[in-house]
């Protein structure tokens, strides 16, 4: 029988622990920000902002870009997830491996690469003799352009979240549908799609929230066309700092929080009343045969990968190999000076590598621990409390990094009350901020995996005498391993590149890769910045390859590109 256990299956401390974790990572910084907002509201500083058409237009742009962006992410990510998980397409592993990489390339880089690719100086278009003349309007400077880039940037999020769910599809359910006479397409629409809904929606939700909070892409593609989203508007508030700024920022952040809460409500709504627990034995992944279609689809996927991965990466590489921006890359101009410089001369590079690796790994694994507990708790509990907790976890991720960082400074600038140590200025405050910011990313896939579990499996373990920790370690965690793997990799990749949170929180000795790259770029060393970015990508690929090497020993499905 598969029914929800109504017995108190968790230790008594779990719920308080979950609430405490959410309070520390989410409520504390958010409410500190809210206080600033209330103070400003109290002083009547904000009437002007509410009346400012800029607020409302940016609200609209934020929604538009985020919605279209999410749609594109879902299309791309879902297409990859379905094709690479469920079909017999050739080269699935390689494609899967490459598809998660675009997350490694900072959004600004991707945006710039695309601007160049489609602009008058595009080497590609020039070679094809279809480059637009100098000065023609750049089509990417538009809502559509932003949405497109959002879509490309966040598609791996959807891919990873969805894939974990697909791994748990029941094979016999699909077979039953085929025998009912359903064509592959119908099986897909009627069985696979609804059953993978929790994963798909989780992916769409993270993508949406990521779009809402993204700064890099609208900064480059939006501002030239006077398209301000909430994050870019917030940033511009900081640039003209005044006594009102915190209040305004708090208010704008509230708008972002509201948008993400509404998004979450939509998600709940869609999932409500649906039961996705798989009955009986699942796990054998069903394979659709593509046949001749495979020959058509594979090149399409590779072409897509070219645009989302290879082209931006090439742009990075080219940028690293020329001495100055705008110098064409030829054999005579090619130089490895930038690599030498960042590798051997800049001492900050090594510190940054160490810091970022530590931060990303600690965040990814630390959060995994946390999310396993929180996810377990949230999946077994429905009702207002669960919804509120979920929303609270979500909001920090939706806020632009700069806002979250400000909130953390407000909270932690002074020494801690009892311990009398100051976290501010140490690497630990960055770690806490990362925990807060990426909580949602880590939690999403895990929760949806928990929702798909046949409760009888845990019940059997309980009756075997396994207490909470025991069955968590032996039964529950291995069963959600694919989602856990996705969660770790997602968080690691994102944290590796993180910029805006750490930008405000770093001090000497605690700079991260994102900060160093940004600072290099900002101070005119775009060649150095590109070189460092290339090195980061190379490092991550090397680590992923190492994982692949040990992959045989990991539980099935942990590595999202292995099938």
């Amino acid at each position, binding site marked *: 029988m598969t029914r929800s256990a109504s017995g108190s299956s968790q230790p008594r401390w779990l719920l308080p622990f979950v609430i405490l974790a959410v309070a520390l990572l989410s409520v504390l910084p958010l409410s500190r920000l809210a206080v*600033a907002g209330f103070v400003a509201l109290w002083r009547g500083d904000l009437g002007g902002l509410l009346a400012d*058409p*800029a607020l409302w*237009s*940016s609200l609209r742009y934020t929604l538009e870009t985020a919605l279209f962006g999410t749609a594109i992410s879902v299309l791309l990510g879902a297409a990859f997830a379905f094709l690479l998980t469920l079909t017999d397409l050739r080269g699935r592993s390689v494609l899967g491996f490459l598809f998660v990489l675009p997350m490694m390339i900072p959004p600004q880089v991707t945006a*710039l690469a695309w*601007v*160049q690719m489609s*602009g008058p*100086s595009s080497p590609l278009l020039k070679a094809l003799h279809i480059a637009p003349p*100098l*000065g*023609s*309007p750049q089509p990417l*400077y538009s809502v559509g352009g932003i949405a497109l880039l959002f879509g490309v940037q966040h598609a791996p999020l959807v891919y990873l979240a969805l894939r974990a769910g697909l791994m748990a599809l029941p094979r016999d359910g699909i077979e039953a549908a085929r025998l009912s006479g359903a064509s592959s397409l119908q099986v897909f629409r009627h069985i696979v799609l609804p059953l993978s809904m929790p994963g798909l929606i989780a992916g769409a939700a993270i993508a949406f929230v990521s779009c809402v909070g993204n700064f890099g892409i609208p*900064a*480059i593609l939006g*501002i*030239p*066309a*006077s398209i*301000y989203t909430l994050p870019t*508007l917030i940033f*511009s508030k*900081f*640039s*003209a*700092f*005044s006594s009102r*700024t*915190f209040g305004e920022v708090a208010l704008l952040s509230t708008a972002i929080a509201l948008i993400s809460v509404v998004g979450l409500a939509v998600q709940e709504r869609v999932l409500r009343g649906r039961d996705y627990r798989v009955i009986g034995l699942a796990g054998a992944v069903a394979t659709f045969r593509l046949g001749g279609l495979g020959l058509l689809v594979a090149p399409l996927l590779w072409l897509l990968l070219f645009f989302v991965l290879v082209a931006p990466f090439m742009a990075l590489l080219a940028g690293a190999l020329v*001495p*100055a*921006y*705008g*110098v064409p890359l030829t054999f005579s*101009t090619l130089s490895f000076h930038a690599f030498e410089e960042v590798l051997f001369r800049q001492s900050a590079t090594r510190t940054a590598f160490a810091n970022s690796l530590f931060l990303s790994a600690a965040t990814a694994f630390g959060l995994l621990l946390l999310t396993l507990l929180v996810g377990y708790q949230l999946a077994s509990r429905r009702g207002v409390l669960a919804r509120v907790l979920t929303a609270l976890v979500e909001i920090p991720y939706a806020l632009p990094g*700069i806002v979250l*960082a*400000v909130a953390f*400074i*407000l909270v*932690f*600038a*002074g020494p801690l009350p009892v311990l009398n140590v*100051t976290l*501010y*200025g140490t690497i630990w405050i960055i770690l806490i901020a990362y925990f807060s910011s990426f909580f949602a990313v880590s939690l999403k896939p895990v929760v949806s995996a928990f929702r798909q579990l046949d409760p009888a499996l845990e019940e059997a373990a309980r009756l075997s005498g396994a207490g909470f920790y025991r069955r968590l370690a032996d039964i529950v965690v291995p069963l959600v391993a694919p989602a856990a793997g996705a969660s770790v990799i997602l968080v690691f990749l994102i944290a590796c590149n993180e910029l805006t949170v750490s*930008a*405000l929180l770093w*001090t*000497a000795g605690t700079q991260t890769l994102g900060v160093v790259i940004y*600072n*290099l*770029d*900002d*101070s*005119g*060393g*775009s060649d150095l910045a590109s070189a460092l970015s290339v090195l980061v990508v190379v490092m991550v690929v090397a680590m992923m390859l190492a994982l692949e090497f040990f992959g045989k020993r990991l539980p099935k499905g942990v590595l999202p590109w292995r099938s």
Partner: protein
Amino acid sequence: ANLVLYTSQPNEDAQATVDGFMAVNPDIKVDWVRDGTPKIMAKLMAEIEAGNPVADVLLIADTVTLERMKQAGQLLAYKSPEAANHDAALYDADGYYYSTKLITTGIVYNTAAGMKPESWLDLTKPEAKGLVTMPSPLTSGAALIHAQTLAGVEGLGWDLYKNLAANGAIAAGGNGAVLKSVASGEKAYGMVVDYMPIREKAKGAPVEFVFPKEGVSAVTEPVGILASTKNAEAAQKFVDYVLSEKGQNGFVKLGYIPARNGMALPDGFPARDSIKVLPIDAAEALKNTDDDLKTFSGIYGSN
């Protein structure tokens, strides 16, 4: 505790400045944090709001920002003996802040461009239609000063910005983005701070920098001491150093126009007296900041 410097100078420049200072004052250790002005201000303001500002000395974008801090009572007055060698227009009479260099905003063009602009008005010509880009005052402090400066000039004013907008100019992110856009040939002309194109040109980039004949605006990267500092003495030494001949020479080596009188200019710049710096009144500019931002967004539409 070490002296803490918040600065918006580029990395290498910040390191060079600090190294120079520590060479002169070996007993003072300096920790520095650098970031773009908006971010560093957000950080600082959050610290102040939380009641525990970390920085002792600021070396950031423009006098307008420091004027605001002065008025908010967040700065410490200090009369530096080095001020004698500086133009009085370049520091606060009460000693709250001192300009350290001049970063002017002029015109950059791609060497492949059809026209060699000499005047701000050239950018409104049909040859430049759709080919002009500039930093947005919403993102760049220098750009805001620039707009406020030009707005006050007879014959330019806000009309210049309106005409530019009518000519298809866009206001993109920061100075870096403008430079990239022009260097890559995506746009032909841009308004940009001087040192970037001059440095890049030296490295081989296809760009050229022009000081337009009407004059250029300048931000002056002022230095100031925070009222809350616990290292007032060391902070004052730092201020003295950056205003001193030695400190100023350091800036020249980095490619900036020094604030101190009687210094040579870095390579790639024309003679000092051929550069006409348009004046700006910080207190006045501060008062108008909001309106000016509105005016600007009214033209380029942040909405």
